[in-house]
């Protein structure tokens, strides 16, 4: 164990191959859809201390979102079917970037669309917006041109979106993968190849719950996105698999609710993390994680967060000879 006299270095560059850079003071981010536009939580935490935050998903046109109920609790998790309620890219640009311009914390804009051109259009509009530090591309959306098939389920379609966004902006581009993809490694490699500066994963799983008294689906939208601690094992697995296959930084997301959870993602290969659902339960969690990660590094004699990243992989395990142990994980029964 080395002596760590100075405070450990927790900075992360999420866009090492982009001249515009995306350097975070620490690896703790707020996840899209769970942190509004940064102002909502500003009343109870010091938002400026965050590594970064990601806005609610923005779409080409304003959306009123789905009917109520939009939320249902499930064991150690929740379903949401907000339906991307947002003011649309133009309404958004008028309202939030002018505020963020005066903030220290990097603000990342999450974009969703149903056509490649629309993703590109939004990226172009964001390119020069003051106060926007990067773009997170949500590819868990139906591709209208492909009959509603999800962009993020197909490596080619995922790469198409990434290429179009990459061509439309010099901003750091993070592509957020869908856990519904069969071949998550293939999708990750495709978006890396297509120019993604970083990869976020995972988005929500698709779930549903039924009210047995009314005998109908609880959510007005019938199905919704499953998030929270329940999905963490799936998220850790995907981060671990993708980390063995790409070189760009990975942002780990899914059920993080404690220091131990965050460490699992770093060890699996994530350079930064996002917290979503746990914010609803513990609004102070982001501040706590920032402090606890720094304290953990110091207590373990680590000078840099990077020393933890990917340490659970075989290359770092003396007793394992394989380069990678990520087989096509199927049934284990």
């Amino acid at each position, binding site marked *: 164990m080395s002596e760590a006299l100075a405070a450990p270095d927790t900075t992360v560059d999420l866009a090492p191959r982009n001249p515009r850079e995306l350097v975070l003071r620490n690896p703790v981010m707020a996840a899209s859809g769970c942190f509004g536009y940064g102002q909502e939580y500003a009343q109870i935490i010091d938002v400026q201390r965050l590594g970064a935050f990601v806005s609610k998903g923005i779409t080409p046109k304003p959306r009123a979102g789905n009917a109520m109920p939009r*939320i249902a609790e499930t064991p150690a998790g929740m379903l949401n079917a907000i339906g991307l309620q947002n003011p649309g890219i133009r309404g958004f640009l008028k309202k939030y970037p002018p505020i963020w311009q005066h903030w220290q914390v990097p603000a990342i804009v999450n974009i969703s669309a149903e056509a490649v051109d629309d993703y590109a259009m939004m990226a172009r509009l964001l390119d020069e917006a003051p106060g926007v530090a990067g773009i997170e591309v949500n590819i868990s959306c139906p591709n209208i041109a492909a009959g509603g098939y999800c962009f993020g389920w197909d490596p080619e379609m995922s790469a198409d979106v990434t290429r179009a966004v990459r061509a439309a902006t010099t901003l750091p581009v993070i592509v957020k993968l869908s856990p519904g993809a069969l071949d998550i490694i293939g999708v990750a490699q495709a978006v890396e190849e297509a120019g993604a500066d970083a990869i976020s994963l995972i988005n929500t799983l698709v779930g549903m719950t039924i009210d047995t008294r009314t005998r109908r689906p609880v959510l007005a939208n019938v199905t919704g996105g499953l998030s929270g601690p329940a999905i963490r094992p799936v998220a850790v697995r995907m981060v671990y698999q993708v980390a063995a296959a790409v070189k760009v930084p990975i942002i780990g997301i899914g059920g993080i609710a404690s220091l131990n959870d965050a460490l699992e993602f770093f060890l699996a290969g994530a350079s930064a993390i996002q917290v979503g659902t746990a914010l609803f339960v513990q609004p102070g969690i982001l501040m706590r994680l920032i402090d606890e990660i720094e304290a953990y590094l110091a207590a373990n004699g680590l000078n840099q967060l990077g020393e933890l990243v990917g340490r659970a992989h075989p290359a770092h395990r003396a007793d394992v000879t394989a380069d990678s142990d990520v087989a096509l994980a199927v049934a284990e029964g």
Partner: protein
Amino acid sequence: MQSAAGATMRPREFLAELLAIEPVMGDSAILTFTAPEGFAKAVGAGQFLDSLCRPESAHDPLLRRPYSICSVDRARNTFTILVRPYGRGSAWLINQPVGTLIDTLGPLGNRFEVQPKTNRLLLVAGGVGAAPLVLLAEEAVRRGQSVAYMMGAQNAEGLLPAHVLPEEVEYVVATDDGSAGAKGFVTDLVGEYLRWADQVFACGPEPMFRSLRRVVLANRIGNAPPVQVSLERTMACGLGACLGCVVETKHGMRTSCVQGPVYDMDEVIWS
């Protein structure tokens, strides 16, 4: 002493110590808690708290549960909530022993708005919807206004005990079985009070709102008296960030946790 109307307090996460449990309304209870400094004076009727209803170490049930502030004791800086043991969260909360520290987020949400010229308030309560109207009654009485508090229940046992309300309040009750007050629905009594009231405030289950609205629309003159309702929506963040708790209004989607839970009845788009 600072007046309540002006004071506000940002939401915060705090540990509220459970001081007392008073069984009321059959299976429900009024729970008294300690509050952070200045809390009792700063909060207003209609606001609510979001409580973690489980041991901190478990992840299930995951989310906080919202409870309306029922009353405050400004001198001792304590507050109460009224809880019905409905499902897992509320049943856990109501069974904690005195002394338990409950992780609480609040105060959250907007307040009932009493207009400057209002002198007579009609409050219409159903079930645990009684809670925010108790605090509203306390505030109105403190301001010297007249309050009629109406409550309905299946039987006498289901009613809020009178001692919970300030003495000055006129407590009007109705029961399905006639075991206390008028026999029938509380909304049947609303008609005759509509002329008297400058403003109406209501909180209760959805069916109550529907019949209240019918009575009001049938009886009132123009838009008078105006009616404010406190609506219940499933919530996640409680801070306006997740958009999970919206109510559709004539001005678009409004979050129930920040822009609500109190709405003007005429603005809500009733489905």
